[in-house]
């Protein structure tokens, strides 16, 4: 006890990381998390771009109401939805499948991304669209060839925000996924490396570190986008 000093590593080793990567199902969990995060993020960004364009630029009848409803959707927390969702997912036969998360996560991501992208679309001069309309472009062409390329910074923000949220998500993943190989990293680590009262500290810490790395790398490259993603919708 006297020799032990928690502030200092006495014998550094990579043993735990190699054990984690080669002797446990950790790579599988990482793959699951990545699969779910990329799938859900892609789906929600496509849906959000379309929705944000419709609300912000098509100005259809009732656009303001729909915008407000989407904002309220962001205020509905997963903690009050996971029980009914569990029975919905079971009814669709998606229980214990990562696909269920890909379908459910967009409900967390679409409201925020839509608001963020609406803000970005508003900064694109309307004149550009009018010119394109006069030149005979369809709305779809305008969206794909003019609005989306100009909103790339907004798309990156929405992507980072969504990806982070998917990577972090816990309650739905804990509820919908049962079998060990299908779990995502956060759920797997807290359940698989604790045996009753025995904490496998080496595996736990290595797993937490490796599990956080993808986000930290993403964040290191896009910190400015990250901040604007966090604050973008608030400034609206």
């Amino acid at each position, binding site marked *: 006890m006297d020799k032990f000093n928690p502030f200092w590593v006495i014998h550094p080793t990579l043993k735990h990381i190699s054990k984690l990567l080669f002797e446990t199902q950790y790579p599988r969990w990482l793959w699951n998390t990545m699969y779910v995060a990329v799938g859900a993020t892609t789906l929600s960004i496509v*849906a959000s771009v379309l929705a944000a364009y419709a609300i912000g630029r098509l100005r259809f009848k009732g656009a303001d109401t729909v915008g407000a409803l989407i904002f309220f959707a962001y205020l509905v927390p997963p903690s009050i939805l996971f*029980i009914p969702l569990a029975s919905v997912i079971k009814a669709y036969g998606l229980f214990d499948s990562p696909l269920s998360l890909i379908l459910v996560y967009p409900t967390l991501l679409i409201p925020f991304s839509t608001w963020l992208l609406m803000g970005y679309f*508003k900064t694109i001069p309307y004149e550009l669209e009018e010119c394109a309309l006069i030149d005979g472009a369809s709305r779809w062409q305008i969206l794909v060839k003019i609005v989306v390329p100009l909103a790339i910074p907004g798309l990156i923000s929405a992507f980072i925000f969504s990806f982070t949220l998917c990577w972090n998500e816990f309650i739905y993943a804990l509820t919908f996924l049962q079998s060990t190989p299908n779990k995502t990293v956060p759920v797997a680590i807290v359940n698989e490396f604790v045996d009753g009262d025995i*904490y496998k500290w080496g595996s736990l810490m290595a797993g937490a570190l490796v599990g956080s790395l993808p986000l930290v790398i993403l964040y290191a490259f896009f910190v400015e986008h990250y*901040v604007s993603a966090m604050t973008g919708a608030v400034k609206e």
Partner: protein
Amino acid sequence: MSTVQTSIPMHAVSVETPSLWSRLRTSRNVMALWFMLPAAGFLVLFLAYPLFLGVWMSFTDERIGRAGIFIGLENYQWLWDDSIFWLSVFNTLLYTIVASAIKFAVGLYLALLLNRHMPFKAVIRSIVLIPFIVPTVLSAIAFWWIYDSQFSIISWSLIKLGLINHNINFLGDTNLARGSVIFANIWRGVPFVAITLLAGLQTVSPSLYEAATLDGATNWQRFRFITYPLLTPIIAVVMTFSVLFTFTDFQLIWALTRGGPVNATHLMATLGYQRGIISGRLGEGAAIATAMIPFLLAAIAISWFGMQRRKWQQGSNNDCVRPAIEDGRLHVERRQRWHELSGVVAASRGDALSAAVRDPDRAAVSVLLDGPDVDQTGRTIDRHGQVQSILGDPSDA
């Protein structure tokens, strides 16, 4: 002798009525319907429907693997007499109020600090965000170790300093456990509050501070009468989200204590999970989740009215007649508020600018496409991101 043709026979110009199909194809409303479809599909199927299903389930005795039958308010009556449920309500309120208040205070302080000019500003801002980046559950593992009954770094340091002589059982004692999870929640939540308020602070014009300093305002007065009023709308939004997320927190508690010791840290969300999913009494779990809704509505309503009040105080652009493109003509509105201009000029797009040029004595003319705000100098605030033209702005002359 040639004849001069005095009139040329002309066919009447026929204007074709567009067919139903082409009208449908170009109608913005129909197009918007298609554009909204994917987002609406997700939100209705996996958000709106489960929300109502949850309320319905709370009136049934549904269990995992068995459909429920309607039992009225029985679940709620059961919970009403359940001391653990009331304990979880108390814990949730305590957790939310204490953690939100501290997060707000620390977040605001950090934001004011980070808003100053200091060396390594970008690096410090990035470091502040780290607790927000690291997945909550994975940071909870670090807290396991920090709060561990044997290996706790806090106990070790205090013993070495000679302040205590035995390890502290952070997550074993009821009140210590409450304090510990609240601390972990604060650690995790402060960056969101701080960075968002920082973004708000950066929109406050420095000239206001200069003017106040010239008038001899103290630091506190500048905060109280400039920063705070201008920041109120963002504070309202941030705190709504902060309260909402803290109130419905699940993962931090579940990862740290699973509600223990003796239910001392059970929040409504974790109790709902334990009763609904682990014990399989979906109906009862749904009732606990539904019981959270009134609290959430109250939190939203408070901040919503807070924001409304701000809007009214600032004089939102309600007094500005929203111009519109009608009959292909753009209505130009001249703001009466600043420059005593009158009338609404209807002009086609090109004419709007030339009409303004023809009237150089008009101090400020803004061509409004979507009703942006006009500030005191006649510049339009580019709130809607659409191009406005300012002509004859006296402040530019």
